């Protein structure tokens, strides 16, 4: 039970960082990270029991041992004995937290590689033939209208990221379209992005394209006046 507390705390940290349950479990470093949390909690429980540490009235109940060892181990793992500032200005913590950070960073890097590979493969096919000028505004709008979880700061951050693409004059529109899809996938996941892109594609074919053709025909008539 104590180990389960460790597992739960570790898992909640990973979920908070990666915003995805599914992809945490395809990453070996995530498993190592969870295992460290699990073992630390189990070890704390074993030490408390073995050396009969006096925990006061809480020792009268087994659940007390479990909670103290589980939560205590989590607090210990995330603690540091001291910290110092390196020449580059970076603050480095010395203690168990540093060990945990190594695996957390490794998990993060591995997760990024897995995600980036999947995202580019899926999104480049999905965004093919999508008009970037229209999609850069309409696609996020369709997605935001359907989502409840993006707060004002997240909306602004998303908008800033997309604006960097829109205002960039050096990249090709094809590359911008893929980058747009990858940016949106981070907030939506692939399934919702695909639904939104399919909707936009239909709107473009049945409305935008038809209207653009109408406008060209009208312009010919107008210029003939």
């Amino acid at each position, binding site marked *: 039970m104590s180990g389960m507390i460790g597992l739960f705390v570790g898992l909640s940290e990973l979920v908070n960082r990666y915003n995805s349950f599914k992809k945490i479990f395809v990453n070996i470093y995530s498993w190592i990270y969870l295992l460290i949390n699990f073992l630390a909690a189990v070890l704390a429980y074993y030490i408390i029991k073995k050396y009969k540490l006096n925990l006061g009235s809480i020792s009268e109940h087994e659940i007390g041992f479990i909670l103290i060892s589980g939560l205590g181990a989590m607090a210990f793992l995330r603690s540091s004995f001291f910290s110092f500032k390196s020449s580059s200005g970076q603050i480095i913590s010395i203690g168990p937290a540093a060990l945990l950070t190594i695996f957390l960073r490794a998990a993060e890097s591995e997760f990024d590689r897995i995600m980036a590979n999947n995202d580019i493969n899926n999104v480049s096919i999905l965004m093919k033939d999508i008009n970037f000028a229209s999609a850069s505004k309409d696609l996020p709008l369709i997605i935001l*209208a359907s989502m409840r979880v993006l707060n004002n700061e997240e909306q602004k951050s998303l908008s800033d990221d997309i604006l960097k693409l829109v205002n960039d004059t050096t990249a090709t529109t094809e590359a911008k379209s893929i980058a747009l899809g990858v940016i949106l996938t981070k907030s939506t996941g692939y399934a919702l992005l695909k639904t939104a892109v399919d909707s936009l594609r239909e709107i473009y074919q049945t409305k935008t394209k038809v*209207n653009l053709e109408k406008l060209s025909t009208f312009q010919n008539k107008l210029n003939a*006046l």
Partner: protein
Amino acid sequence: MKSDDMGSSGYSGYSSNSGRYDVFLDNFNKGNNYLNGLTASFFDQIKVDKDNIIKKDEGLLRDRFNQISEVEKDINKTNYQKALITGNILVPIVSEVIHANDLVIKKSGINIINSFLNIAKATEDQQLIDLAVRISGETQI
């Protein structure tokens, strides 16, 4: 300008749930140099033709094109927002402009409408396209 102020959009979701994307739209429209650059060029393109109509007409058209000049001067609006307002001003008067007896007014009017249509086509912005379609529908040609 909020998204709901921009007229018909083509998406049913636009008029409801607006709190979910107000910040996005506001920030996006203000920071979109591509869209604001193109719409700024629209005002440059129509300057001479607009002045021609203001000089030639003494009634409704002069008032409306003066109104467009005032919109253009508004420093609190982005060029994109100004283009949307200009489009809305043009909708009810396009027929009168292109069927005007005065050839200068007619030619200048056609140039202005053409510029608006070109901007709508270049940006592929739904709001501008919707306005351009409304303008073309009002011309009766």
